[in-house]
């Protein structure tokens, strides 16, 4: 898994609407990457739903939240509608899992990402990383606010 202090690998992926989203274009804003295993698995549903409930509070701190999984944009679109979430979902679809691999979040054996959070600062440097011990364990939203509070304190 990538570590704090390392440059965040750049990427360009398509979102649920087929639009390209590239990390480099988000310079100047902080970015939270939420790697998760798969659309429509019951556990992910809870994770992104919970983040949706505190999304205004996260965005108020100048953070753009991007979900990333190996699913296609079409699956993302349906999943997003099901969740009622405004969080953009990026398709790490072809080559499969390339971005997750670049961040060390890919689980080769199962063919999808582990549940991992990566906070990237305005200059494109990794600020904070959280990797779940297993894909079944969901990182609480509190951890995101802890990371934001800690980095704010360090500046």
């Amino acid at each position, binding site marked *: 898994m990538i570590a704090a202090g390392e440059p965040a690998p750049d990427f360009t992926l398509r979102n649920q609407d087929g639009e390209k989203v590239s990390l480099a274009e988000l310079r100047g804003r902080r970015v939270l990457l939420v790697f998760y295993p798969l659309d429509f698995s019951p*556990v992910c*549903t*809870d*994770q992104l*739903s*919970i983040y*949706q*409930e*505190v999304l*205004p*509070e996260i965005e108020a701190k100048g953070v753009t939240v991007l979900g990333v999984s190996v699913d296609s944009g079409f699956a993302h679109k349906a999943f997003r509608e099901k*969740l*009622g*979430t405004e969080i953009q979902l990026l398709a790490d679809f072809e080559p499969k899992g390339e971005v997750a691999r670049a961040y060390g979040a890919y689980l080769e054996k199962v063919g999808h990402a582990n549940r991992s959070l990566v906070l990237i600062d305005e200059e494109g440097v990794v600020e904070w990383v959280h990797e779940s011990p297993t894909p079944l*364990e*969901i*990182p*609480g*939203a*509190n*951890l995101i*606010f*802890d990371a934001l*509070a800690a980095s704010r304190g360090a500046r």
Partner: protein
Amino acid sequence: MTGELTSAAVPPPGPDDHWRGMGALLIVYADLGCPRCASAWAEIREREATVVFRHFPVASKHPRSPALHAAAEAAGVQGRFFEMVDSLYADRGRVDDPHLWQRVEDLGLNLERFEANRRSVSVAARVRRDFESGIRAGVTGTPAVFETPGRRAGS
């Protein structure tokens, strides 16, 4: 709109918590629109325990939840909080406004007061307070049951 959402222990029961029963303490973060919570509630309400109910509506997942939590809180203003919770969980298919009014009538509550209270800022704030304490404790799914205050979800 909100306080800090950094990690914090589950608050111990306070004077304005909703609680009933006698025995060991169970603090339950639950979503009134959640089917898993409804089946868990059928079991929890039979336990010999002091059950503390904390609001954890996940609106993106269950769009009707905020209205149901506000209804329970408004029934609570008239001293019938748990009766409304029991009623909502016992009959999950009838949760539109006319159904809520019927429940209000069945519980012998004043409809006009109920209507004013459930739309009030103070009721919304009371629901949000519980939700935020759950987020801070790391709740990522419902129901989340804590047998001892001070612990975090997953610990």
